[in-house]
């Protein structure tokens, strides 16, 4: 059953993502600033505006309600639960990036947190010395030497690069939550994960609002710097500043 789902779902997701990229390419002509990292800025700004509108109208209010209603330990439990599921493919990606020791640690985390940590609700592995990592297929491609390509703002999903879009499609394809056979459960979990992730970001919203002169470019440049740092596991060579 899970397989049937994958076959019908994945190509659909893939097709829509490819459509977006193709569309982005066509609209490239509207670009204005000539930033070489953002050749389709016109399209991206429009999509960014759309995402902001959806966020303001739906996602953010729901996340605020969630944040308001649930006590902090419950929210942490939810974040831990999804983090535990994510650790599985974080481990796989560490392996693909040639870091077997980290991969072993990630799988150790899954084992400990799924059992002692009661289905991942408690992160007991971190205090035990197994640090959480952050990896995905986009980073793995980056590690293998694949360049970013253009910056793209995807609908709802948000900022990516062409490389990270490919990585994201793989992430989604193997995502244990998205592949759950029981569709109602899957949908509830996907929605819960989205809301929980968004709620974790609420404090950051206010800070960005305060900091950015132009939110679009602030978020774009932050994304690009962040991804570069992640590919190097936090030890990226410093870019020339002057």
């Amino acid at each position: 059953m899970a397989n049937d789902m994958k076959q019908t779902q994945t190509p659909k997701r893939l097709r829509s993502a490819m459509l977006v990229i193709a569309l982005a390419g066509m609209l490239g002509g509207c670009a204005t600033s000539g930033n070489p990292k953002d050749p389709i800025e016109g399209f991206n700004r429009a999509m960014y505006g759309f995402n902001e509108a959806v966020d303001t109208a739906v996602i953010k209010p729901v996340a605020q309600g969630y944040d308001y209603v649930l006590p902090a330990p419950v929210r942490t439990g939810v974040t831990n639960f999804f983090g535990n599921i994510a650790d599985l493919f974080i481990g796989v990606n560490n392996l693909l990036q040639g870091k077997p020791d980290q991969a072993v640690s990630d799988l150790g985390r899954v084992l400990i947190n799924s059992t002692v940590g009661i289905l991942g609700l408690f992160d007991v592995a971190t205090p035990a010395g197994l640090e959480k990592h952050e990896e995905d297929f986009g980073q793995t491609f980056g590690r293998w030497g694949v360049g970013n390509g253009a910056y793209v703002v995807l609908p709802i999903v948000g900022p990516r690069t062409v490389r990270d879009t490919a990585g994201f499609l793989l992430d989604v394809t193997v995502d244990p939550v998205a592949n759950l056979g029981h569709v109602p459960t899957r949908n509830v979990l996907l929605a819960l994960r989205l809301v929980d992730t968004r709620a974790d970001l609420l404090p950051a919203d206010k800070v960005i609002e305060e900091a950015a002169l132009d939110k679009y470019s602030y978020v774009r440049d932050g994304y690009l710097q962040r991804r570069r740092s992640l590919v190097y596991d936090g030890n990226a060579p410093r870019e020339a500043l002057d």
Partner: protein
Amino acid sequence: MKYLIGLLAACLFATGAAATGVAADVAPDALVKNVTNEVLEIVRKDKDIQAGNTRKTLELVEAKVLPHFNFQRMTLLSLGREGRQVTPEQLVVLSGEFRDLLVRTYSKALTEFRDQEISFKPFKMAATDTDVRVRTEIKQTGGKPAQLDYYLERNGKSWKVYDIEVGGISLVTNYRSTFAQEIRAGGIDGLIRTLQEKNKAADTSSKAK
């Protein structure tokens, strides 16, 4: 988008942690540590700050943190190549406005993230070093700790922070393309005006509260 925002926020907050009126000749890592601890301790105890008293937070940051930052250097770094066309007078005005923007951002982040725990990574430097990175980490529930790095430069006897990286995002270079965009549209003076408007709008809204 998600973690990005979190990190940015963390980053801004970080700056809040960077400095105090410690005497010259304090090692850069000790400087960062002292100021972080001092500022966070005040924030955690002060009921007014926790209740969202913007003015009080700003005062704290100005008294404890600002003396350890080199804003002219930060401004020049965020201008990048465009910095060549800035006159000394413009630089003074510009770095003043930029400072106000950054201070407000830090203060905001400081209040939003005050309960996070910060740890300091081992630090080593040679006696002759004049440019160093001090690494710290912010613990986050349910996630990988966020990296928070301070770049300091020796200025005579004292060390001054000239850049902060949160989760690998440099505060300085993150403004670079926005600044370039503004300068293309209205020159350095255009950028100054944009910053002034932003600061003025923020002032009015914080007074209204």
